[in-house]
């Protein structure tokens, strides 16, 4: 078993986050109350998603420079696990919004931006599925992946700040850091981000290994013929 330590670390961190997230001490704030515990899940999921997408873009750039098909596999699988986290992030976010803002989908620029962001990456998957030739698919979807990330960042992080949003950091709300000062939250939030990133890498790794096995088997079938 090679490099199993980070998987163990990932499981330990996830359990730590779940236990501490539900049982640990949290600051009392009006309106948010106990639902502040959702910070560990919702906010951390979005951070993890952005980190995974960024890594995916790095691998796409690497593919375009070197032309190894393996880099493209990594990029696409990372993007897939990032989409999974994005959908989870939307679900936890709308649960949270239901109790604090009184509506599961308030008409908020950040929410709409997030929906568009997920659409962009679903389009990426569609683009991948519409090619037969592997090298061609890899090259063109890498180009789209880099382009998509460059559009994704303004949609999620810059445009909502210019307008009124219910999320922190815009429309007169305080930025995230200023009420995050509480050390109890930090102790769980940052490990949570690392834990989710590791989990995403684990998903991606399993699928990449499956892909490599499939490719080898296809080559065997092709050579036997």
């Amino acid at each position, binding site marked *: 078993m090679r490099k199993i330590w980070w998987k163990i670390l990932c499981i330990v961190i996830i359990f730590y986050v779940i236990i501490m997230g539900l049982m640990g001490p949290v600051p009392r704030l009006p309106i948010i109350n106990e639902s502040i515990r959702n910070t560990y899940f919702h906010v951390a999921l979005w951070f993890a998603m952005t980190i995974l997408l960024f890594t995916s873009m790095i691998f796409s750039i690497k593919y*375009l420079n070197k032309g190894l098909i393996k880099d493209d596999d990594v990029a696409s699988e990372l993007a897939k696990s990032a989409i999974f986290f994005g959908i989870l992030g939307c679900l936890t976010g709308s649960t949270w919004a239901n109790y604090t803002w009184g509506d599961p989908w308030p008409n908020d620029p950040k929410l709409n*931006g997030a929906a*568009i*962001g997920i*659409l*962009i990456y679903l*389009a990426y998957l*569609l*683009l991948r599925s*519409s*090619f037969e030739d592997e*090298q*061609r698919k890899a*090259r*063109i979807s*890498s*180009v*789209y992946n*880099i*382009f*998509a990330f*460059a*559009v994704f960042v*303004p*949609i999620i992080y*810059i*445009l909502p700040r*210019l307008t009124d949003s219910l999320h922190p950091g815009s429309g007169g709300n305080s930025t995230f850091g200023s009420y995050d000062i509480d050390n109890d939250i930090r102790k769980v939030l940052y490990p949570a981000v690392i834990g989710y990133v590791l989990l995403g890498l684990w998903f991606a790794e399993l699928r990449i290994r499956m892909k490599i096995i499939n490719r080898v088997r296809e080559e065997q079938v092709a050579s036997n013929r």
Partner: protein
Amino acid sequence: MLLYVVSTVFVCYLSFNLRRNQLTPIVWNTLFWIILLFTAVNAIAKSFSQERYGRLLYYYNLCSPQAIIISKIVYNSFIMLLLSTFGFIFYAFVMGNPVGDMGLFSICMLLAAIGFASVLTLVAGIASKADNSATLMAVLSFPIIIPMLLMTIRLAKNALDGLDWSVSTDEISTLLSIDLIVITLSYLLFPYLWRS
């Protein structure tokens, strides 16, 4: 393409004919930009798929990919500018013209033309490599173009109301920066697309 704009505008005019008084500036604005968006997608989708294989090979031998993408973007920007100007004139002719500040509105049209052209040119390049390029073009381009469309609509709304220019500096700078990002990315990424 000009006929496409004119007929779309005319269809909208006839559909709104019965309830002319309900056409508020907001509806006017949104309708105009959506017509322009569809025109842009249709006009620019052709920029790669229309060319024959032999001619692409000829271009490939003749000049660098950077030159091709820049010239395509410039050409498409001019087309978009032309189409949006004519579209606006005809639209204002049949639907009335509530624009308060023509200067700001034309800046808005200029920025939108460049932005739409640059985003859609790269996406058209990507989509033309696939088989069912028409569907793919719509699916790939709409989510990417939405932030630009929203900023444009907001800026155009300010122009409609004739607000002071200082109110809309935010929107102008954001649009400009999105345009710049997109053009730089197209410039950097297109060589990889071109090779295949």
